[in-house]
Structure formats: C-alpha cells, structure tokens
C-alpha cells in the first residue's frame, strides 16, 4: 500500500504529464492545419502534371526509344526502397506502420532473391528497421533541421536518387509514406516511382498536342521532375499524417492521464479516509481502555 505522500506525488506527476500531452496535442493541431494547407496547395500542380505526363507517356511509352525512367531498365533485380518517416516520435503508430509495411515489402523481395537497397528519410523509420535491415542501408536523408518541407527538399532527394539511377545502382524505386485520410486514419502506402507509372483516364477526350521541342525531349525533361513531384507530394502527405497521428495519439494520452488522475484521486481519498478511521479507532479504543 503506497503511502499518502507517494500517491500525492504520483497524482502531481500524472497531472504534469497531462499538461504536456495536452500542449503537444494543440501544437500538433496547429501544425496539422498548416501541413494540410500545404498539401492542398500542391494538389493542382500534381494533378495537372500527372495528366500531361499520362498523355505523353501513353504516346511515347510504346516506342523503343522511350526514356529509361519510364520504360525501366528491363530488369527488376535491384530494388531501391525509399522509406519516409518522421524525425520525431510520440505520434502513435505512424512511424512503426510505415516501417512495418516497408519491412514486409523488403522481406518479400529478399525471399524472391532480389537485391534490396534502402534509403531512409527521417530518423525514426531508420531506427525502427535498423536491426533487421540495417545491412541494406545505402543512404539517409536528414530533415530534422527543416521546419517546413519545401519543394527544394524534394528536389534534393530526387537529384540524389536520379544520380543513383543514372549510375545504374538500381532498377526499380519505391517510396513508402503514409497517405493522409483524416486525423484518425493514415494509410501506409508503397508507390513505385521509377519506372514511372501514370494512370491514364480512358474516357478523357484525347487532345492532340503540338510539342515544342519534340515529345521525347519534353518527356526526358519532365520525367526527372516527375520523380521530384512524387517525392514532394509524399513528403507533404507524410507531414500531414505525422501531425494527424500525433494529434490523436496525444488526445488519447491526455484522456488516459485524466482517467488515471481520477483513479489515483479516489485511491488517495480512500487511504486518507483509512488513516483518519485508523486514528479514530486508536483514540476511541485508548479512551475505552481507561
């Protein structure tokens, strides 16, 4: 049976924990709004881009001279996994869900006899898979100094990856991130970015465009941008998901702390009452003995 003083100390400590989680929840809510705005703002670009690329890819894709970024290297032996997670923890299952998906994916590839290389973006995911897949790490991108992800960050990552692709270091690249659905739900997603695939709307009326310079030059110019765009939107989705996950995790934590405080307070009151009763019994029995 803990003493009264112990209980009191525990209640105090849970109370300050609750204050912290509450504050974190509110900070996350504010950041989430900003992250969502950023994701929203990037959407028109991504959508247009994909439409144009879809059209281009459909008309050039079949030919032999199609760029490698689109048609692939003709092999899928070496797989590059780009695992994007958060730089910080305390956001519920966000990091571990992405890591889990990536791990399953990597194990599957390994069991098929493929070579796996891993680039991690964000410290937490790196830590989560280091023990099992640490041998396959080839690079790490640190975004902990970045307050707000910009297109420049995505470009840097894309440049690095494209450099590796040109050097023939891998055949297929897949990015892992969490797609933001709402505050409670974020879906860990795997998306193949090299060779690029663009959904083609079948029913869209096809406009015949003039291309300046030629179709293939434009495609060669745009495909690397496509990689950056895909990474950028994944980074933004990830940022929103992270804050969403943190917000609901901290909401839960705050609620749990509240329940714990209630429970502890009841226990505290009970034992205080027990002490009082005890003292009374002692006094009464002492008086009776006289």
């Amino acid at each position, binding site marked *: 049976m803990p003493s009264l003083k112990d209980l009191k100390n525990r209640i105090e400590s849970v109370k300050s924990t609750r204050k912290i989680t509450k504050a974190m929840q509110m900070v996350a809510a504010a950041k989430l709004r900003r992250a969502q705005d950023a994701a929203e703002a990037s959407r028109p*670009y*991504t959508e247009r881009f994909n439409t144009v690329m879809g059209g281009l890819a459909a008309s050039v894709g079949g030919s032999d001279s199609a760029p490698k970024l689109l048609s692939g290297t003709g092999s899928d032996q070496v797989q590059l996994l780009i695992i994007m997670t958060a730089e910080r923890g305390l956001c519920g299952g966000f990091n571990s869900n992405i890591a889990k998906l990536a791990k399953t994916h990597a194990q599957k590839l390994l069991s098929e006899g493929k070579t796996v290389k891993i680039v991690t973006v964000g410290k937490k995911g790196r830590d989560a898979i280091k023990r099992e897949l640490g041998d396959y790490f080839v690079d790490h991108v640190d975004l902990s100094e970045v307050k707000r992800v910009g*297109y420049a960050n995505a470009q840097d990552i894309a440049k690095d990856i494209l450099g590796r692709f040109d050097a023939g270091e891998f055949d297929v690249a897949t990015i892992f991130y969490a797609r933001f659905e709402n505050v409670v739900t974020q879906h860990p997603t795997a998306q193949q970015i090299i060779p690029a695939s663009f959904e083609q709307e079948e029913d869209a009326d096809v406009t015949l465009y003039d291309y300046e*310079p030629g179709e293939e030059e434009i495609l060669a110019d745009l495909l690397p941008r496509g990689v950056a765009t895909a990474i950028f939107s994944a980074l933004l989705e990830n940022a929103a998901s992270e804050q969403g996950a943190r917000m609901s995790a901290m909401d839960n934590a705050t609620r749990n702390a509240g329940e714990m405080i209630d429970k502890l307070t009841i226990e505290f009151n009970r034992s205080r009452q027990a002490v009082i009763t005890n003292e009374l019994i002692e006094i009464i029995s002492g008086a009776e003995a006289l």
Partner: protein
Amino acid sequence: MANLQFDLVSPERRLASVEATEVQIPGADGDMTAMADHAPTITTLRPGILTVVHGGGSDAYVVSGGFAEITATGVSVLAEQALPRDEVTQEVYDQMVEDAKTVYGRAQETFKNEPGPVDDAAKLLSDMVAIGGHIGLTAKN
C-alpha cells in the same frame, strides 16, 4: 475578343488563375504568345519572364523552368519555381543567379568531356542573367 483561362501553379502554391486575353510564354525554343484558339501545344519553359495580359492590365512573373500546356480555351503553366515580378528583389535575383552558377560549376566538373550538360547549364545561367536585364536588375559578377 475571346478570352482564355490562365493558370499558373508551382508545386508549393497556385499563383494565379485569371481570365486573360494573351499570355507571353518563354518557351524553350523561343518566346511565344498564346491567345484564344491557339493550337493545343505543350512546351517546356526556359527561365524567363511570363507576361499575362488581361482586362485590368498585365502581370509579369519570373519563372525558372517547367512547362506550359496550351489549349484553345486556356493556358496552364506548371513552373518549377515562379514568383510575381514585384517579389523578385535584388536579393532574390542574386540568389537565383548564384544557384545557376553553382549548377554550371558543378556541370563543368562532372561532365568534363561532354559538352551537352555543360552547355545546358551555361544556357541556364545566361537565361538567368538575361532575366535581370528585363526587370532592371543586374547580376553581380
């Protein structure tokens, strides 16, 4: 005169969405002006000044590459980096030129015997410098 819908988007934000009468685009193969009923065209951009003429006057933007999709009824420009003309101060401009110089320097180092990428980077730099001439800023040397 018929109007066309003009949209300028960068990955980070939508800069403009207006009804325009004509749009002057710095295409990779040369400048062009798009007006309503233009033949559907897709062109890549070089760094330069994009001018939109609409009912209330004209707006200029500094764009640094990307592409434009022109249809009979509208123009959408997807620029990698775009800024309204007024937001390009000497400081911002210096930074842009500096970036282009870095790219040029790196290209010279990495591709010693291949003129292609070096020429591209050199063109990027000269395009950047040319922008300065258009908006009344000078590049530092």
